[in-house]
């Protein structure tokens, strides 16, 4: 497969870079990320007699995934964010219909940096980890503070109106599309979410999967926010519900000094947005519904012979979801 991708990429870049002799080396598929194929490579080419070389990454839709998203939307979102206050990967080229690489893909610059999903609970002294937490979640606040209309994001993403209803409709629709068997626990959660929807506090850009594992760091600095495939316009409390979900506490918190309350207080001060606890609880439950849905999508893909690892029913996520509901 690698040889075929190399040929296709070479042909594509030759056209984009106006050099039929463009050369690609070091192409390999990384094991990072479950939702897209990530192919890293270096390209060298000539322009006006000068030789250039650059590191790239191609993100291609896999045959089967845990998540169905649109490369056209991801590319458009990143292009709109190219010069904003939030550091994002520089996108280069889009293959929206798979004409280039067989399946929809984007090519972007490959940046230097370390991706460490447990950076907040790693080996650094606690003061440095706390400083990293501040930088990290300030970037999340900065995403929510972007003027999405001025950036033209409404040409790529659809303002949801009722953000909670839109999110619930989306994920319930996904369940109907992929479910393999009756899922009473999911139905109970959906019924609760339907009955207890919060009003939209404000409409902002929502990252959708913000976590330490989706940023690049150089030293203690957060240099790039990655993985924008689930970005959308919605309620910023969706991201807050995601990063305060007890399921992911090991990634987002530092016991005793950077708990959910610290994160929410700091985010609220920086953005000026209200953080209604009941609404955050609702988005916590939805966060677990989303997590469970990635597993359901993966189970379906596996059974259809399109995913290369086995997933079982996410019963622990069901339990957490129902505990959150009971405590509400």
């Amino acid at each position: 497969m690698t040889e075929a991708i190399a040929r296709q990429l070479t042909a594509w870049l030759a056209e984009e870079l106006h050099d039929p002799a463009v050369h690609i080396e070091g192409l390999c598929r990384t094991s990072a990320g479950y939702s897209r194929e990530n192919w890293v490579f270096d390209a060298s080419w000539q322009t006006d007699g000068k030789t250039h070389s650059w590191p790239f990454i191609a993100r291609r839709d896999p045959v089967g995934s845990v998540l169905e998203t649109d490369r056209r939307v991801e590319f458009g979102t990143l292009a709109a964010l190219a010069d904003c206050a939030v550091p994002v990967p520089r996108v280069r080229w889009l293959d929206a219909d798979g004409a280039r690489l067989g399946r929809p893909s984007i090519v972007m610059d490959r940046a230097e940096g370390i991706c460490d999903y447990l950076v907040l609970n790693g080996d650094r002294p606690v003061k440095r980890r706390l400083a990293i937490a501040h930088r990290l979640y300030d970037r999340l606040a900065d995403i929510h503070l972007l003027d999405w209309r001025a950036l033209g994001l409404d040409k790529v993403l659809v303002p949801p109106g009722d953000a909670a209803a839109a999110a619930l409709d989306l994920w319930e629709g996904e369940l109907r599309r992929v479910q393999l068997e009756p899922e009473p626990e999911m139905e109970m959660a959906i019924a609760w979410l339907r009955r207890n929807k919060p009003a939209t506090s404000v409409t902002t850009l929502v990252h959708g999967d913000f976590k330490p594992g989706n940023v690049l760091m150089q030293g203690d600095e957060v240099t790039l926010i990655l993985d924008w495939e689930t970005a959308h316009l919605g309620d910023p409390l969706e991201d807050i519900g995601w990063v305060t979900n007890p399921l992911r506490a090991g990634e987002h918190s530092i016991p005793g000094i950077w708990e959910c309350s610290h994160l929410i207080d700091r985010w609220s001060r920086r953005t000026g947005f209200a953080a209604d606890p009941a609404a955050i609880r609702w988005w916590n439950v939805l966060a677990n519904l989303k997590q469970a849905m990635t597993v359901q999508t993966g189970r379906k893909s596996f059974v259809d012979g399109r995913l290369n690892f086995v997933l079982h029913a996410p019963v622990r996520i069901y339990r957490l979801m129902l505990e959150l509901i009971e405590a509400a």
Partner: protein
Amino acid sequence: MRPTVAEQLAGISRILSEIVAPEVAPGYPAEILRGAIGALNALGARWTDIPAFLAWDIEATANVLRAAIPLLDTTLADAVRDACSHSADPVDWATMEARQEHMRGLLVRAMPAILTDPDGDAHRLMTELFSERSERFPFQMSAQPVKKG
């Protein structure tokens, strides 16, 4: 009947780990192979627990549905009575799997009625079922990949 199912699963896992894995290219293919061996090992460790889990799940779900009968419309109540009156051979896996799916489907249909009575027995039994089910479920969401080398 030797090799037993457990012995076959363990043997296939050993072949993949000792013969195939060292020859597989590093990176994505090796990562996928480690995951596949991990899944095979998880299956080998827990497959014998599946019949008992199915039997428990069917019966516990039937208990919720019996308690919900007073809340259900006539058609659904009759379907629940009918489903609860049958039993399946616990060593007939295919029938047990189909029966489990049928009972959980009935629970989905009964859910709106059960949720109208949050203090009722059916609601209490349902939340107990969901909680205990998460403890008894034979498999983790994803198997631990075997370690490199």
